[in-house]
């Protein structure tokens, strides 16, 4: 235990100091609050902490960029495109070559021969390949695939957001009530949740899709898709409700809720100021992850042909073309784009969701 003794400058040591040990209990109020050392440490604000953790992960950054690109592509892209959603390209110049056997005389000699006429005709430009005009060709109706991809993105992404928002709203309200009040309310709501989770989604949608066809002009209207997705919301909130209920059950036992009860706070303020804000991080994560699922669901509907009318551009409907063997084999340009978009969107949302979960998790140390 040897350690060199650092000797100070001689003039300093001249000040006589007697180590006094008597109690010095008078601490001025100033001193109590003097925290100059504490002030040297700056904290990260809560938002900055989350943002920092989020941006540190490369995958979630890739996801975020992809989502932004997809949004720009779908919502701003159509403005730059010369083709509309249902605007068929009728400008295919077809050379009509017709020939007929005629007789004609040259220098009084009667000759017979063929007359060939070249006529330039404008017809529907369907099954077009990739060209400068149609970056991804055209489909069976002569619609521009690339433009439809953009319009399809609008429908798919909007539906995703609307459905998720509705689901979350329902889930938060019902799950929150169930978790906070407990007792028979909880029992009733949770049994409803159990019942709803028994309903198989795909058969339900098939039945619904065909049933709706018979009503009015739903068969040709995009309303049908909205109705189906609305029904999906009605059974899709159960996951969120379970999540919120679980969170609230555990939060309810926390000491700060006891403290709130102890202060005699109203139920409303307990729920909305103390409980729900603490569930929001988990909700954001589950919403982001859920978005991918909804987009996938729309694609499934489109693929099965029961979502939006086929003339409406959605990514699902574009995928539907795969069912035509000829298109599947010879015109991959018609469906590959939609497939890639769906994959990208789902992957991106999942990456962002994972990134957010890690960012919100206080236990993450990396």
């Amino acid at each position, binding site marked *: 235990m040897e350690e060199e003794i650092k000797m100070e400058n001689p003039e300093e*040591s001249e000040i006589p*100091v007697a180590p006094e040990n008597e109690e*010095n209990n008078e601490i001025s109020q100033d001193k109590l609050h003097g*925290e*100059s050392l*504490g002030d*040297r440490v700056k904290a990260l604000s809560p938002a900055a902490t989350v943002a920092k953790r989020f941006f540190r992960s490369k995958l979630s950054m890739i996801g975020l960029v992809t989502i932004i690109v997809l949004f720009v592509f779908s919502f701003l892209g159509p403005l730059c495109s010369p083709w509309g959603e249902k605007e068929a390209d009728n400008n295919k110049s077809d050379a009509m070559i017709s020939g007929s056997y005629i007789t004609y005389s040259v220098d009084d000699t009667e000759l017979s021969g063929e007359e060939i006429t070249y006529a330039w005709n404008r017809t529907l430009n369907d099954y077009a390949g990739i060209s400068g005009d149609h970056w991804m060709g055209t489909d069976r109706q002569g619609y521009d695939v690339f433009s439809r991809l953009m319009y399809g993105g609008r429908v798919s992404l909007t539906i995703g957001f609307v459905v998720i928002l509705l689901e979350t709203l329902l889930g938060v309200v019902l799950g929150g009530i169930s978790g906070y009040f407990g007792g028979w309310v909880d029992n009733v709501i949770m049994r409803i949740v159990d019942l709803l989770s028994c309903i198989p989604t795909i058969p339900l949608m098939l039945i619904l899709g065909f049933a709706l066809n018979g009503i009015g002009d739903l068969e040709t209207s995009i309303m049908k898709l909205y109705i189906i997705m609305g029904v999906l919301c009605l059974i899709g909130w159960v996951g969120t409700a379970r999540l919120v209920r679980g969170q609230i059950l555990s939060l309810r036992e926390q000491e700060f809720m006891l403290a709130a009860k102890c202060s005699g706070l109203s139920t409303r303020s307990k729920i909305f100021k103390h409980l729900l804000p603490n569930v929001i991080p988990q909700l954001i994560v589950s919403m982001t992850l859920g978005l991918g699922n909804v987009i996938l669901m729309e694609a499934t509907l489109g693929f099965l042909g029961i979502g939006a009318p086929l003339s409406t551009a959605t990514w699902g409907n574009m995928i539907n073309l795969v069912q035509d063997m000829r298109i599947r084999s010879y015109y991959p340009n018609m469906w590959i784009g939609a497939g890639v978009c769906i994959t990208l969107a789902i992957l991106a949302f999942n990456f962002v969701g994972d990134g957010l979960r890690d960012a919100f998790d206080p236990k993450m*140390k990396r």
Partner: protein
Amino acid sequence: MAVDKQERNKHYISRKESREIAKNNSKMIRNFEKQKKRKIRPEEYVTEMKDPNNIVEFDDLHTFFFSDAGTVKAVNGVTFSVPAGSTVGVVGESGCGKSVTSLSLMQLVQAPSGQIVSGSIRFRADMFKLDEHGRKIPVYETETDEDGNDKLDENGNKIYKLDARGKKIIKKNELGGNMYEMEREVVDIAKMPTQAMRMIRGREISMIFQEPMTSLNPVFTIGNQLDEVGKLHIEGISKEKVKERSIEMLNLVGIADPEGVYKKYPHELSGGMRQRVMIAIALLCNPKLIIADEPTTALDVTIQAQILDLLREIKGKINGSIMLITHDLGVVAEMADYVVVMYAGKVIEMGTAEDIFDRPLHPYTIGLQKSKPTVDQVTDELYCIPGFVPNPINMPNYCYFRDRCDKCMEKCSGEYPGYVQVTPTHKVACYLYKDMAKEETNG
């Protein structure tokens, strides 16, 4: 409201600062990780002890955490040593770096953000002797005569006992494991590669943690967890021997029904019992040093008394040293031979237990002792140290305790005070005692 924005933002890190911190952190972390990854030859970490009586010497150890809020200098130049066969108590409040010091000794600092930046931790270890291929050299059973001396053949070589297949039999050590040729080496743990460190962790140094509830794995029985450690560290031990050893250890830590506890799961035991099991696991391989990191903080007073009693008893039995980390001065007074007081990553005072408790010098040590109410005396108002325990980020170069000190002088604004050797065993880092030291050295 009335708090203006500037005032509020003062407490948050601006985006620019944050970016700088991140840049610096990634640079530093990359450097240290690179250093760790390269191949380290034994010559680099084998050193010499300053004092051969010590078992561990911390020498100017710096362990930093590169966090988002800045570099946390958790351990900032810590120098002290643990003499063999003694109990050293490391005292300090939360965030003073006492736990990080012990984790550095185990090389368990949370990487990559936490890194041992400089300094050394010298540890006297019994390392395996390695042959030229890097393999351990076993000791074989030899034929002995009645006096226990090795019989030699005509060439003067030892005669080895052979098993049925004509192979030499490896000698068993006292724990029932294979015996290898050992050598006593002093190693610098701060520079040691992780691979070699595994030989030390658990076998030479073991650790008892604060939370007995979470430091046992809930899905394995107590016996499983004891045996696992035994099998890992005592090579070549037979199954029966391991179990025997485990039960012996459970017995040693005062568990009345060791066979029964051996079969139980952690959740079936109370906190005190679990802590006893943790101690049993720590003792399993006859470690030279036990680090007890707040071993009784989570326990009740009556159970704490039992556990402290047990630790004292065990230290006598295994002939090892204990490094006791705690915030409770009472526990230290009862257990420790030497006391090290830490504050904000630095050792501010150290000495024998008598030095620290009878003649505390540093205002912080004095304050700590006075601020704890005691059962046997009545005081009207408790002495209290004003202010808060600082978070060791961006520390200034003056005494860290200056703002909270009631004996603060002009000099204290100068650079961080060096150590003053007040008596041969007692050292303090405070300007109050500079003169005293001078007088002593003069006279």
